[in-house]
């Protein structure tokens, strides 16, 4: 199950803008003067017109990669240390890692692993900043990374322990949101598209000149249509339908128009707002739904006995598809930082990554995973081959990134208006 499949959204964004510090990429920023935290006075955009986040860290965009700053009081661990004896404390979304993969790590390294889960990112942040939680490894997202760095919640990585980083797609070895992978390693990649029941819906998305129109032409399926309960995802889809590729826009006119378009779905099809795509489409209680690729890859598991996976369909654009990645980081207060590095390296192993995928349905961005083989070897049904995320998909996709404080309020208020009906 994907982390977004909670009754709450994951998209928690950067807030108060910070001072402009340094350039978008390149030189290391040693902000030793920041002391306990990097709460700095703020402007929304820097001198270069780039939107700024907390601690003066620019908001990462594909066209504006960001090198996250290093701080003198938050350094990476030294090289050549022996791993601690554990237990390793993982802080993860519920059901987002294969228990068998965790057991394998325990056995290989003769340590215990303990998993604590969180329901949403606010809860995670609240726990991590309370000073009472003591975890080693944390699963996070693009939205949160710069906040976590500015607040010195996570520690820089020592790549000397991460030999398997070479297994990762080149683009994500040096991702735009964390140049040089200073603080994170990628975990999974996924797309957002439209799922439908091929046995219930007459016209597939591909039958429309604009495939997104399937949702706006769904009056005959009223009550059986859903969008994801995630303001960024749902409003971004409305933007993409209009051909607006900047899904991180902070233009009120565009966001409000997306809201109005989305609100039309309420009158057209009494649209439902939830994150039950992976159960409701297989169960037939929803016929058309905005959906995540990983959910639909795992959806056949939820079909009733005797129902073939061919009743499931998943579409996403070949170019400009919403394509995201999730990542893992080591917390600054980790009591077992060397073991945590060992674990990150373990998850980047080709075989371990594949094993993890077979359980949670979300593909790790590893070079060794052949998308075609995932289908030919039966991991994914042929009719759901569009759920596979290729390296080229990521390169051609659009990404939901962090917004400024004002941008977040704009999107949240638009979402509130839509959800008021």
């Amino acid at each position, binding site marked *: 199950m994907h982390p977004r499949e909670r009754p709450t959204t994951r998209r928690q964004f950067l*807030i108060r803008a910070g001072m402009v510090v340094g350039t978008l990429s390149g030189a290391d920023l040693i902000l030793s003067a920041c002391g306990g935290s990097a709460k700095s006075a703020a402007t929304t955009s820097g001198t270069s017109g780039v939107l700024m986040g907390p601690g003066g860290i620019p908001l990462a965009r594909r066209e504006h990669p960001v090198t996250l700053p290093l701080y003198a009081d938050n350094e990476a661990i030294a090289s050549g240390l022996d791993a601690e004896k554990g237990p390793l404390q993982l802080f993860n979304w519920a059901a987002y890692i294969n228990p068998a993969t965790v057991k394998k790590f325990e056995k290989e390294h003769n340590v215990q692993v303990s998993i604590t889960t969180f329901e949403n*990112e606010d809860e995670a942040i609240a726990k991590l900043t309370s000073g009472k939680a003591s975890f080693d490894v944390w699963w996070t997202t693009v939205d949160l990374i710069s906040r976590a760095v500015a607040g010195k919640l996570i520690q820089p990585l020592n790549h000397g322990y991460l030999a398997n980083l070479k297994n990762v797609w080149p683009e994500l070895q040096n991702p735009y949101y964390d140049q040089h992978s200073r603080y994170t390693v990628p975990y999974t990649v996924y797309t957002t598209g439209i799922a439908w029941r091929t046995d219930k819906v007459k016209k597939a998305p591909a039958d429309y000149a604009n495939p997104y129109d399937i949702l706006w032409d769904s009056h005959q399926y009223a009550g059986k249509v859903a969008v994801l309960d995630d303001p960024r995802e749902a409003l971004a889809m409305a933007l993409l339908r209009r051909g607006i590729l900047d899904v991180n826009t902070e233009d009120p006119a565009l966001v409000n128009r997306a809201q109005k378009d989305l609100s039309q779905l309420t009158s057209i099809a009494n649209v439902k707002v939830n994150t039950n795509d992976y159960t409701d489409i297989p169960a037939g209680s929803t016929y058309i739904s905005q959906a995540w690729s990983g959910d639909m890859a795992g959806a056949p598991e939820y079909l009733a006995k005797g129902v073939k996976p061919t009743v499931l369909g998943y579409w996403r654009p070949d170019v400009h598809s919403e394509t995201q990645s999730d990542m893992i980081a080591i917390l600054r207060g980790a009591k077992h930082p060397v073991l945590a590095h060992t674990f990150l390296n373990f998850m980047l192993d080709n075989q371990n990554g594949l094993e993890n995928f077979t359980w949670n349905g979300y593909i790790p961005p590893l070079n060794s995973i052949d998308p075609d083989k995932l289908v030919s070897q039966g991991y994914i049904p042929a009719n759901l081959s569009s759920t596979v995320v290729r390296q080229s998909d990521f390169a051609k996709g659009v990404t939901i990134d962090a917004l400024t404080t004002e941008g977040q309020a704009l999107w949240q208020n638009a979402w509130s208006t839509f959800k008021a009906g």
Partner: protein
Amino acid sequence: MTRRWFWPSFALPGAVWLVLLFLVPTYAVVAVAFGTVDPIFQNPVPAWNPLDWQFDTMRSVLAEFEPGHTFWIVSVRTLAYVALSVAGCLLIGYPVAYYLARHARRTKGILLVLLIVPFWVSYLMRMLAWIGLLFPDGLVNRTLIHLGVISQPVGWLDGRPSSVILALIYGYVPYLILPLYAVLDRIDRSVLEAGRDLGASPIRTFFHVTLPLSRNGILAASVLITLPMFGDYYTNDVISGSPHTSMIGNQINLYFQGGTQKTVGACLVIVLSVFLALLMSYYLWVTVRASAETKESLL
């Protein structure tokens, strides 16, 4: 001196309880509503000192309560759902409570236990159980099709207001029956017998004696279920999920769940609390007046 404080000290645990679990959290919500958020992690930063309170958020929230605006729409809908649900609870609950108080004899004990059983299961679990029952191929549809009532499965979970209202009734009716039973059970039977002796039929006795005497019980039980219903968001989320059935509790949840505007969520809580306090004031006024009338009649 010791005597003077002896009996009042019995109220101390309750007073401490009230302060710790009601007044302090209430003030915390107020402090969050008029405070700010942490610039890095977006955690609310309460403004404990009233001199530091900022009222901009409250002003913008109140503006959204103007007719046609977001919070007005969900408030009107919430009011309608709660009114219909309370009416439904009374229609179902009153006869049950009446039967228990007046006519159940040997079965009274077991029926009371059965009424308490739903309290053993959490409200959320009971709502989730409805999902299975109301699914297109769930027990409800299968039973209705089997009985010939419907020919096609009904989409109970397709965002219907009726499903949300029925779920609210189901969820809250036990909370109405028990206090109502307690009031009906306390009605002096000799008063009812007097009505019958004066020639009133059972129905006339009910409408002219039992119902007026249970008026305060109806009001108390209704208040008991009305207050949590106004803040309910989970019922709509589970049973419908459609913006068409969204309630004010869903908006509060939306703003508290995440983002930079938790102060908006706290302001909504305050507005809702003030509205409910007004409702409670009416209840208290009616109760006090009824008590005064009773005393006068005894004199």
